[in-house]
């Protein structure tokens, strides 16, 4: 029995390690590419750089205007994240707990739009809309669209997690005189932090890596561009050939803030309040 346990444990670790190699190796390869010359990157065939080039990083930092662009990106990311979490949690809660006129229509509409919300198709009408709202030169257009296009999935998810919270808790609070919003804030929110952590993390990541929207809504103002736009344009320099090594350096720097956010969010969806602690 005991030796069987150990075997299982060892096999589990072996399995996890093998998968970890599969997932991490390409990322590592990209980061190592940031230390190579452009010729070596595009020639391929090596894993470690033949000679380590460290100048790619400072060059990428200045060429992509990192300091400024990171600020812009953080700005959109923070508000996209807050917006996504707020909208998804409020709507997910209401949709899960309440019946109201037009609920089926609303859910159907949300589901239907999830089939079509692809950047390529909706860019043109969204641009026209933002133009009419006078937001087409503002980072807020990016924030609003990012929240809008991802809210469908989030609302569905959150509502499922809210359903998992025992209804008795709401009822007890209701008897104590709490209104709907108070129940949402005091009872539900603390209990669904795991999924809100995920929603927030994914919203932040979506915003951090999005390229298409920022490239459109910042086209008239170079100083407003976001990091991804800057990193992508790193490819183009003095020559007809793309500077892949610089782009890899830029992308490698851009991973770091995302990792920090992941660690923070990880606490949310992992430390997870166990339902038991609440029921007690």
């Amino acid at each position, binding site marked *: 029995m005991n030796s069987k346990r150990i075997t299982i444990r060892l096999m589990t670790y072996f399995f996890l390690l093998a998968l970890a190699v599969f997932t991490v190796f390409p990322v590592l390869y990209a980061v190592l590419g940031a230390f190579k010359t*452009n*010729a070596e990157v*595009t*020639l*391929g065939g090596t894993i470690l750089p033949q000679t380590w080039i460290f100048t790619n990083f400072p060059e990428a930092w200045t060429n992509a205007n990192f300091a400024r662009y990171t600020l812009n990106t953080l*700005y959109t990311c*923070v*508000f996209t994240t*807050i917006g996504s979490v707020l909208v998804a949690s409020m709507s997910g809660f209401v949709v899960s707990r309440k019946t109201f006129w037009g609920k089926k229509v609303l859910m159907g509409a949300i589901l239907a739009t999830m089939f079509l919300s692809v950047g390529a198709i909706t*860019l*043109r009408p969204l*641009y*026209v809309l933002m*133009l009419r709202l006078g937001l*087409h*030169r*503002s*980072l*807020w257009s990016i924030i609003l669209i990012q929240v809008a296009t991802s809210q469908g999935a989030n609302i569905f998810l959150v509502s499922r997690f809210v359903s998992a919270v025992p209804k008795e808790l709401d009822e007890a609070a209701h008897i104590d005189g709490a209104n709907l919003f108070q129940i949402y804030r005091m009872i539900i929110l603390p209990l669904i932090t795991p999924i809100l952590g995920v929603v927030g993390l994914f919203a932040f990541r979506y915003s951090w890596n999005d390229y*298409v929207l920022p*490239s*459109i809504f*910042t*086209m*008239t*103002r*170079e100083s*407003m561009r976001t990091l991804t*736009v800057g990193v*992508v*344009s790193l490819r*183009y*320099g*003095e*020559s*007809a*050939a*793309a*500077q*892949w090594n610089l782009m890899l350096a830029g992308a490698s720097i851009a991973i770091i803030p995302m990792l920090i956010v992941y660690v923070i969010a990880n606490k949310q969806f992992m430390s997870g309040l166990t339902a038991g602690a609440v029921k007690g």
Partner: protein
Amino acid sequence: MKKVLLFALIALVSAGLAFAGGQRQATGDGVTEIVWWTHQRHDMDFMREKVAEFNATNPHNIRIDYVVQTEEFQRNLELAFQAGDSPDIFSAPFNAKYYVDRGMAHPIDDFITDDLRQRYGNFLEVDVENLVNGNIYSLANSGVNFRLVYNQDLFDLAGLPGPPETLEQMVEYAARISEAGRDQNAYGFALNLTNPQSALFRSLDQIAKASDAWPYDYTSGQYDFERIRPLFEAYRGIMDNGGMFPGVVSLDIDPLRSQFAAGNIGMYISGNWEPGVYAQQFPTDVNWAAVPVPSYEGVQRGTTWVRAGRWQMISSQSANVEDAWRVFEWFHSADILREYHERGYGFTVVPATVQEADDPDIPGVEYFRIDAAIEGPWPLAPHELGLVVEGPSYYDVIASYMVGTVALDTAITDLNRRYNTAVERAIASGDLDPIVIPDFDPMNP
């Protein structure tokens, strides 16, 4: 604590609104701001330097706001036009007719001086590229021409007399180089076939033009892909006889160059950017040279294409056309065009500059010097003017034939049918003016 956070948030929002709101800067003191968008990045440092110089010295109180756009330049430009928010000047990745049809370009005939006329000579008016309905919309600067770039060392290794002149030689030499280069893992021929259009436009199209086998027949206004059957067969032949670089279907242009610089590729066909790439990005010890592209029989029956005639355009929405022109004039001056050429940003086609300027200091540019006897401007065929063809383009079909997923006869019949139907429809709907040149001469197109 929460209130503090909330307060901080509100402060951040309001601060952010101010800087995110991106109003166009108000320009006082009678300064005119000329917004200029470009899709070109390779000359970014040079252009920025010149813009700064202009802004510091011009006597007209003009300030240029030079914006280097992202990859999706054309899409963004069209969105900006929709918004009535277009730049005063924009670089033109497409021909003038495209922009004129869409009401985006402002004619510049009224501004053309005798001096300009003289300096530009026969490149002042290049039909479709910068001339539409008798109006000029853009001025030429640099042009692109095409050559077969080859590795002399590998040719020597394979005991070949010299670069191929006929299509047959190209196929045969590719195989012989692969054969001779087996030990060092070198191959005869390569294409950046991950994007068939990009790969075949620079190679196959040019061979077709040099062989008087361009699939669009200007005299009849019809497509006939039978004319490039030998090219279908040759390209497939190189795949089958082992002459092709392995994994060519997913090969992109930069890895291709990199492999060429490392001495692993015998030959490929590309434009005059290549010397600059080897001088700057992919330093090479390879003993390379370039020659005009081969043709079916080794006899040039048509000229290859020099793509030139346009550079910048003035927006039809510009409120300051006069000032935009002042910027134009300054940037099209003899000095700037010469410097642009000599510093290697692009090969000038402007006759006066060709006379005055020295070759840029880049090894190998001499192979790409424009030779009017074998190359020149070409009239554009419907598919180069945005013909909407249903289904895959002929570039895609050739690539498919190369990997053996379509049969040759059906592919050609199908292409003829689809392209000619598309031409008929486009003419019928008014999207395309018929392109027929009864006395078309491929040596003097």
